[in-house]
């Protein structure tokens, strides 16, 4: 399942969706809105996407997962719009027969998603200050 959504992400449903009788392991990653980055306070994030390309690249990542690991189920969902601190912005759920593959595939999916999928966030601070996040190629995000 690949989805961009403006509604809260139902991560429990995604985890259920990828569970299969042939799979002994499910790993679910949630990226949430953190209140502090260094000393900078965030009160909300606003996410924007290039939807057609984002969904296409998320589907490509799911295909890469299936090529590289014995993945039975995979779900990649990203939320768009304004999110408050603590809300879930992205969820990745993966099931495989054995646990090392589930961890590796889930980690790969979120790493790739953050590298290549055309989605951007704007950081909104306590004084109403706003800043689009466009990391340098060298920066870790």
């Amino acid at each position, binding site marked *: 399942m690949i989805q961009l959504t403006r509604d809260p992400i139902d991560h429990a449903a995604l985890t259920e969706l990828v569970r299969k009788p042939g799979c002994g392991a499910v790993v679910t990653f949630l*990226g949430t809105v953190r209140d502090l980055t260094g000393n900078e306070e965030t009160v909300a*994030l606003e*996410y924007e996407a290039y939807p057609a*390309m984002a969904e296409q690249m998320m589907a490509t990542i799911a295909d890469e997962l299936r090529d590289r690991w014995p993945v039975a189920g995979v779900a990649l969902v990203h939320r768009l719009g304004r999110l408050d601190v603590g809300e879930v912005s992205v969820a990745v759920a993966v099931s495989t027969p054995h646990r090392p593959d589930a961890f590796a595939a889930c980690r790969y999916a979120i790493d790739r998603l*953050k*590298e290549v*999928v*055309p989605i951007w966030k704007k950081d909104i601070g306590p004084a109403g200050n706003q800043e*689009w996040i466009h990391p340098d*190629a060298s920066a870790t995000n």
Partner: protein
Amino acid sequence: MILQVQLFARVRELIGDECCSLELSTGSTVATIRSALGSRYPQAKDLIARSAVAVNCEFAANERVVDDVDEIAVIPPVSGGGR
């Protein structure tokens, strides 16, 4: 030919529109698009230099020749995921 270019995030805000039209000669490439945008919108030039360009929803090299049926977008450095 007239190309429509989609704009996102800070590039969109610096240019002030979600989309812009460029009149380019046939046989133009992604590199032509970059320099046309940079000349017309100097305020966005540095960020465009750090951005990718997508043609038909795929990242495209500077040498890629474009046509007016192609879907073109400027993709500034992405930042999806949690924070």
